C-alpha cells in the first residue's frame, strides 16, 4: 500500500452568540468588575447565573451581587497549559464558590505549585486589564487571606450592557483521505483518473470513496476511466467567486468520464458559454504542475446520444 496522504486541516470559526438578560448582566458586570448571581425560587444564589432554574426550569431573573472573593470547592493541577486556557504557566483548575453564592464557578487559579492549593482555600478574582464582557474578564483567581470582600450592592443595571459575545474557536486536524481516495489522488497527480468498481453491481465510482453506496460493500478493483467524457448536465455561473480568477459567465458541468458510472463536476472552457450543451464531448486540460485538471474543453467529436448517458444524470 502506498504511503497514506496527509495534510493539515484547520477548522476556525468565530461563534457569534446572543445573550439572555441574565447572561448579559453577568458578563457586563465582569466588564465593570462586579460579580452577579441569580436567585432561584427556593432562595439559592447561582454563580455563574443562568436564565432558568436548573431544578425546576422556572425562568429566574432576580439578580444579586456577590463578592469577588470565594472558596475553592475542588481543584486540579494543570502542569502543561494548553492553547486558549486562561494562563500559559502551570496553574490549578478550580471550582470557586463566591462569597454569597451557593454554587461554584469554573476558572483558573494562579498558584506557585500544587502544594499551595487545597480544597477550602480562600481566593479572589484577579481582573483582566482589558475587559469586554466575557468570562475571560476574570483573568484568573489568586490566593487571598482576607475577609470576604463586601459587595457594593449593585442593582445589575448597567450603562451599555453587552448583548452578545463573539467566541473564536480553532481546532487543528491532520486530514487523511483513506485508502480509496489516496489511490485516486495519487493517480490523478500522474494525470490518470482511476476509479473503483463495485464487486456486486459492477458500477465504477470516480472518485471512489471505498464503498458502493447502493450495495454497501467495499470497492477495490481499480479501473482507469476517461480521459474523455460527456457533459450530462450543466449550469451557467454569473457571479464571480471570491479569490477565483475566472471570468464570468462560465459553465460548470457534470461530466461522466468514459467508463465511469458516476458523473463528477468540472468547469467547461474553450467554447462560448451559451454553446455548451448536454451530450457535449469534452477532455481535460492540464496546467503545468497541477494535481487536477484546470478545466475541460470540447473534443470536436459528435455529441453523445442521450441514451448513452441518461442513467448518469
Amino acid at each position, binding site marked *: 500500500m502506498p504511503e497514506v496522504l496527509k495534510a493539515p486541516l484547520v477548522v476556525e470559526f468565530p461563534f457569534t452568540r446572543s445573550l439572555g438578560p441574565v447572561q448579559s448582566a453577568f458578563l457586563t458586570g465582569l466588564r465593570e468588575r462586579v460579580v452577579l448571581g441569580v436567585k432561584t425560587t427556593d432562595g439559592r444564589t447561582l454563580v455563574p447565573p443562568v436564565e432558568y432554574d436548573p*431544578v425546576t426550569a422556572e425562568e429566574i431573573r432576580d439578580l444579586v451581587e456577590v463578592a469577588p472573593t470565594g472558596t475553592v470547592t*475542588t481543584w486540579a493541577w494543570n502542569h502543561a497549559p*494548553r492553547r*486558549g486556557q486562561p494562563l500559559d504557566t502551570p496553574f490549578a483548575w478550580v471550582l470557586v464558590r463566591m462569597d454569597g453564592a451557593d454554587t461554584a*464557578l469554573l476558572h483558573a487559579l494562579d498558584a506557585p505549585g500544587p502544594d499551595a492549593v487545597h480544597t477550602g482555600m480562600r481566593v479572589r478574582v484577579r481582573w483582566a486589564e482589558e475587559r469586554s464582557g466575557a468570562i475571560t474578564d476574570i483573568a484568573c483567581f489568586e490566593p487571598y487571606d482576607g475577609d470576604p470582600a463586601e459587595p457594593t450592592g449593585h442593582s445589575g443595571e448597567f450603562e451599555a450592557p453587552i448583548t452578545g459575545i463573539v467566541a473564536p474557536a480553532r481546532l487543528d486536524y491532520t486530514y487523511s483521505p*483513506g485508502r480509496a481516495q489516496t489511490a485516486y489522488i495519487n493517480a490523478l497527480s500522474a494525470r490518470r483518473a482511476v476509479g473503483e468498481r463495485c464487486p456486486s453491481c459492477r458500477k465504477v465510482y470516480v472518485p471512489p*470513496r*471505498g464503498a458502493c*453506496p447502493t450495495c454497501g460493500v467495499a470497492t477495490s478493483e481499480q479501473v482507469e476511466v476517461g480521459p474523455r467524457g460527456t457533459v450530462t448536465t450543466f449550469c451557467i455561473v454569473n457571479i464571480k467567486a471570491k479569490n477565483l480568477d475566472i471570468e464570468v459567465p462560465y459553465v460548470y458541468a457534470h461530466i461522466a468520464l468514459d467508463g465511469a458510472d458516476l458523473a463528477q463536476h468540472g468547469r467547461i472552457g474553450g467554447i462560448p458559454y451559451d454553446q455548451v450543451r448536454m451530450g457535449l464531448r469534452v477532455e481535460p486540460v492540464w496546467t503545468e504542475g497541477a494535481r487536477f485538471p484546470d478545466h475541460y474543453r470540447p473534443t470536436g467529436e459528435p455529441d453523445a446520444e442521450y441514451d448513452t448517458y441518461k442513467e448518469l444524470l
Partner: protein
Amino acid sequence: MTREIAVVAFAQTDHRRTTEELSEVEMLMPVLHDVLDQTGLKTADIDFTCSGSSDYLAGRAFSFTLALDGVGAWPPISESHVEMDGAWALYEAWTKLLTGDADTALVYAYGKSSPGSVRDVLTRQLDPYYVAPLWPDSVALAALQAQALIDAGHTDEPELAAVASRSRADATANSHAQLRGSIPQGDYLVRPLRTGDCPPIGDGAAAVILAAGERARELCTRPAWIRGIDHRIEAHSLGVRDLTDSPSTRLAAEKAGAFERPVDTAELHAPFTSQEVVLRKALGLDDTVRVNPSGGALAANPMMAAGLIRIGEAAARIHRAESDRALAHATSGPCLQQNLVAVLEGDPR
C-alpha cells in the same frame, strides 16, 4: 411494554491509536458486515438504521452521510442519526421497534479521534458562554471530579490505580482492546489523574442489531432481551452539580428496572478510573457483580462508540451464556453529565 426487543448481534473493530490509512466508512464497513453475517440478514432486511457519530472529532462536515455508503442506503432506507454516542442511537432504534414500525434495526457508531486533539475538541461541547472560552479539556474536568471524590473520602489514588490495573488486566482477554496487560500508572496528566487513570485515545467503530419478539429468536440462539432502558441528564453547569454522585445514573437505572433484581455483570462506561467509583456507588454495585469484564473504556475508548460497546459487550456475554442479567451503562458530556442505563437478560438456561 408490549414488545420484547433484544440485541441479537454485536461487532466492533480492533481499536487503535490511529486508522489513518482508512476513511471512516472504510473503518466502519467491516463491523456492519460482521453483524449482518452473524444474523444472516441483508441490508434490505433491516427495517431501521440509526447511527451515532460526531463531525467535530475528525473535522469532517457531514461525515455521517458518507458513512451511510457502507450501509447500502440506496434505494432509500429508513434512517436516522444522533450526534451522540451510539448508545443513544440504540435508544432511538429501541423506541422505533417498540412502536411496531420496525422489527429489525441496525445501530452503529464510530469515532476517529486520531486526526484531531480530542482533549481540545471536547471543550466545544461545553457551555459556550461561561466555560468553553476557558478551553478546559476533558482530562482537567475529570480531574476536578476525582479531587472532589478524594476530598470527600470516597476514594484515593491507590484505589484509582487498582481500577486501572484491573481494567487493563481484564482486557487481556479482549482482542479488540487498545490498552491491555500491565500498564504503568505513569505521571500526573492533570493532578490527581495520572496517565493510567485516563482512557486511551483511539479510533474505532461498533455495530449492533436489534430485533423484536420471534424475529429475535430466529436470528440469535440466546437473544439479550432489553428489559429496560432509560437515560437522564444533569444540569450543565459543573458548579451546580455534586460531582461525587451521579443522581442521573441512579434515576436511569431505577427507570430501567435495574434495582428490581441483582445483575451478575455490569459494563460501565467510565472513561476515567474515578468515574467508576461514582458509578458503582450510584448503581449500588457490590463485589458480587462482575464489572467491565471487557476492560471497559479504560482499555478502549473510541469516542461515540464506547457507550454502544458497553451494551454490545453486555449482550455478547448473554449470547455466550456467561451472564443471565447484565447492566450496561453509557455516558456523555463532562464528568458523567448524561447517563443511559440498559438492563439485559437471557432466557432461562
